């Protein structure tokens, strides 16, 4: 199953706070 990448940092931070999961930020110059 493919990873559902978020693109909004604030939305991701809110989800991380709610779920207690850490965030993984991937900085790329060549997104898939």
């Amino acid at each position, binding site marked *: 199953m493919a990873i*559902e990448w978020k693109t909004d940092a604030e939305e*991701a931070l809110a989800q*991380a706070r709610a779920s207690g*999961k850490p*965030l993984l*930020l991937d*900085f790329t110059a060549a997104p898939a």
Partner: protein
Amino acid sequence: MIRGHFVPVRFDVKKRPEAFERFGARWTPTVLLLDSSGAERHRIEGFLPAPDFAAQLLLGLGHAAFSAGKFAEAQRRFGEVLEKYPETEAAAEAQYWKGVSRYKETGDGSALGETAQAFQTRYTDTSWAKKASVWAAPRA
């Protein structure tokens, strides 16, 4: 591993240079692991083959747990690096922090001595072995 353990965010630096600057990224690829409060706990700069990358992610989970004071979980994560990816560069760091996590959880100083001892047979030629050497029992 990414789907199950992290909230994943991807920034294309060409389209989102402000995100690059906000989080202090300097190069691509860069992967930052932040705890759920948004504090950076681990940074991976440059490409890594899959096993090394997976080991670094586990290392990051360990550091996030350690910073949250979850020392038993941190020990487990660092132990996973050693079990699953013993040949990667992450393993020596995991061996060090596994010992520190055990000490922080139990308050038992022998955890550090045993870690120093472990570095005498495994990952001997690493900076982590040097860091752990201060815990070694003095020779008679």
